[in-house]
């Protein structure tokens, strides 16, 4: 069984546990809290007001990893949700209906629901439902999709205007005046975390890569996504980079031997996270890059939050520098760069039923990489949240067949 060794994992677990503790405390103290989505978000604004951010996606993900998602999904289907609706939403809806949110629970009823509509249309529905169930005020931030190659000034103006409108709402909710210097400080913490995360990912260009940029990235997505803007997250990545640089110097990777370097596209099957990982570890396959780890932000190529222009840099991040607000074809370009610059041998696409943003059209992606770029590509299917869509035997067969064939091709190429 593959086991990631290192203090980074433990450190990540600790700070995430602390965050959950903060949420539980807010249930008792009534400290202001707000729902917000992970992808391309403006959590910096909430942190500038000391509003505790709550991420329903992360709660859903945690429930799935702990194999607790199915009863909530079934509950939601009794409420009328379809088998074809996103299971993240269904798990959250069922969890809410079963009393998971509120003063007697571990997650507080939010004072505000901030829907950062960044690519994912389901986000809008999800937070409309939350607003209805929890009777909490809903604030929509409409982030124009990246429709052209460059950032449009009018799009930036629109998002910045909405951020200012959000600031006015946060002032009412907290009774505090907006402090631009506090926002600048928060943006500096974000920038430092982004520097660390980008550096960590860059280190995976080494062979062996010091960590699995898919499976281990998911541990680190806590600090970079949930805790971005906090000093703790910035410190975490400073420490993580030191550990990874040591690992690179020592030629140490997450597996005894790195035999195949892969790029992975799509979220993992959380209810079978460990089993899924083991299927790749069995072949010595290590992810050197992943697209899913960029849902919160694409930091690899230099973009950072900027305390000198906090609102503009927050807005630009939301529009341009996260995977969900970018067209599918830009994801192809992103993956192509990953394959080339991180010297990957193959692409693995994990197509999930719940998420059409990620998955709809991945057949075309497979066609592009296989037939146009001639990158060996495997596509497998299951779901990120609903355990009913994961068939282990078939998954194992597909993965084994792929890596066997890859091994054979390499043998033939060498001889």
């Amino acid at each position, binding site marked *: 069984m593959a086991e990631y060794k290192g203090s980074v994992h433990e450190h990540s677990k600790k700070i995430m546990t602390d965050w959950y503790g903060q949420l539980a405390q807010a249930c008792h103290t009534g400290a202001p809290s707000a729902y917000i989505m992970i992808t391309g978000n403006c959590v910096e604004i909430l942190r500038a007001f000391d509003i505790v951010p709550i991420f329903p996606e992360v709660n859903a993900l945690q429930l799935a990893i702990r194999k607790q998602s199915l009863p909530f999904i079934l509950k939601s289907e009794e409420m009328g949700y379809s088998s074809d609706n996103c299971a993240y939403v269904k798990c959250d809806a069922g969890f809410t209906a079963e009393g998971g949110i509120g003063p007697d629970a571990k997650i507080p009823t939010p004072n505000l629901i901030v829907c950062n509509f960044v690519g994912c*249309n389901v986000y809008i*529905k999800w937070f409309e439902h939350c607003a209805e169930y929890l009777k909490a005020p809903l604030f929509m931030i409409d982030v124009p999709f990246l429709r052209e190659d460059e950032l449009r000034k*009018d799009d930036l*103006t629109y998002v910045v205007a*909405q951020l200012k*409108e959000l600031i006015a709402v946060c002032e009412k909710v907290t009774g505090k005046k907006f402090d631009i210097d506090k926002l600048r400080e928060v943006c500096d913490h974000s920038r430092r975390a982004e520097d660390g995360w980008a550096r960590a990912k860059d280190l995976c260009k080494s062979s062996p890569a010091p960590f699995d940029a898919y499976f281990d990235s998911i541990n680190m997505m806590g600090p970079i996504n949930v805790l971005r803007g906090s000093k703790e997250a910035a410190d975490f990545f400073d420490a993580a980079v030191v550990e990874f640089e040591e690992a690179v110097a020592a030629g140490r990777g997450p597996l005894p031997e790195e035999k195949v370097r892969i790029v992975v596209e799509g979220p993992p099957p959380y209810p079978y996270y460990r089993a899924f990982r083991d299927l790749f570890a069995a072949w010595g396959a290590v992810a050197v890059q992943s697209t899913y780890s960029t849902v919160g932000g694409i930091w690899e190529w230099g973009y950072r939050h900027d305390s000198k222009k906090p609102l503009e840099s927050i807005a630009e991040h939301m529009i341009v520098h996260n995977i969900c607000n970018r067209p599918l074809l830009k994801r192809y370009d992103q993956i192509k760069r990953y394959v080339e610059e991180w010297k990957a041998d193959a692409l693995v696409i994990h197509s999930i039923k719940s998420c059409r943003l990620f998955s*709809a059209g*991945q057949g075309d992606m497979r066609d592009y990489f296989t037939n146009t770029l001639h990158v060996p590509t495997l596509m497998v299917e299951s779901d990120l949240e609903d355990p009913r869509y994961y068939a282990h035997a078939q998954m194992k067969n597909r993965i084994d067949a792929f890596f066997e064939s890859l091994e054979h091709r390499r043998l033939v190429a060498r001889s």
Partner: protein
Amino acid sequence: METTPVLERCRAILAGGAADAVARWKGPAIGCFPVYTPFELYHAAGVLPVGLFGAEGRVELAHADARFQSFVCSIAKSTLELAFQKKLGGLGGLVFHSICDVARNLASVYKRNFPELFIEYIHLPQNPNSAAGPAYMQSELRRVLGRVEQWVERKASDDDLRRSICLYNRARALMRELYALRSASPEKVSAVEAYQLVRAGTYLAPEAHSEILVDALAEIRARQGKRMDRIRVIIEGAFCEQPPLGLIEMLERAGCYVVDDDWVAGWRWFTSDVKETGDPYAALAEAYLNASRPSSTRHDWRRPRHEELVERVRAHKAQAVVFTPAKFCEPALFDYVLFRRTLDREKIPHLLIEFEEKMWTFERTRTEVETFAESLLFD
């Protein structure tokens, strides 16, 4: 099926599809994927907006299934298939909108596989509360028109745009009249007939559509019609992928008078006329933000859709709502949950039947609808 000379004209237009539409227009044409699109922009630049609703069961999927998974709606796949089989009927461009994640990805897949086509994607605003909304929408309209002008190498002036607004206003007003007439006297105009009258407009220039509607309305008003024992229903959920005509016919035969629906919603989008004077971009933006019909593809929490549905039920004196989402349609299936919850609270009966564009048999669904209708009629 009943018929009149006007309806025969409509059926011929529908049978001829995009190919005949383009031939009649004798100019560039753009396929408009659902739901709403700013028709006036294209029309002002001399481009005919044509409804793009997939293949509606008329082609076998030979290529699209390999690009899109099984859990993706039919309309997305069959729309892509049309291009693979060169059956776009002379459309030189397509426009997609921010209605759902599938439509967005479809635009990308189209761009990669058919680089010879003009493809545009419009991000329609989802925050009508924002003071910055009008400026954003106007900038998006200008951006899109600029791209269209580059494509067809023809400029559209503000006067051209205002003229197009007038023409589309007229057609939309006539469709609103048709719907009001059907709600008041459903025995005079069937849902099938109303559907074909509206749908024909997706292949016509607006003035030609208005002519048909004027003739149709005059003829319908003159009818006697005999009221039958049917329940008055609102149909909700088929705003993108369109139901087969057989499904609509079945709903009526099974005991329903359709007094309101969201079929072909994008072409009947505004609840009142767009302002015809002054800045046309400002007029279209204002109309989009404040005079759009409620839709599962548009967020407007000033008047949540589930509460608006109840108001509409009361306004049309409907006895029930029949939800008809297309299979795998995310926006419709999500909205169903809050719709259902609210209708239960208000004790308004409702039924859910999913459909696919390529359905051709409706017996099982007919039994469900008949049972539902009878339970209300004889309660």
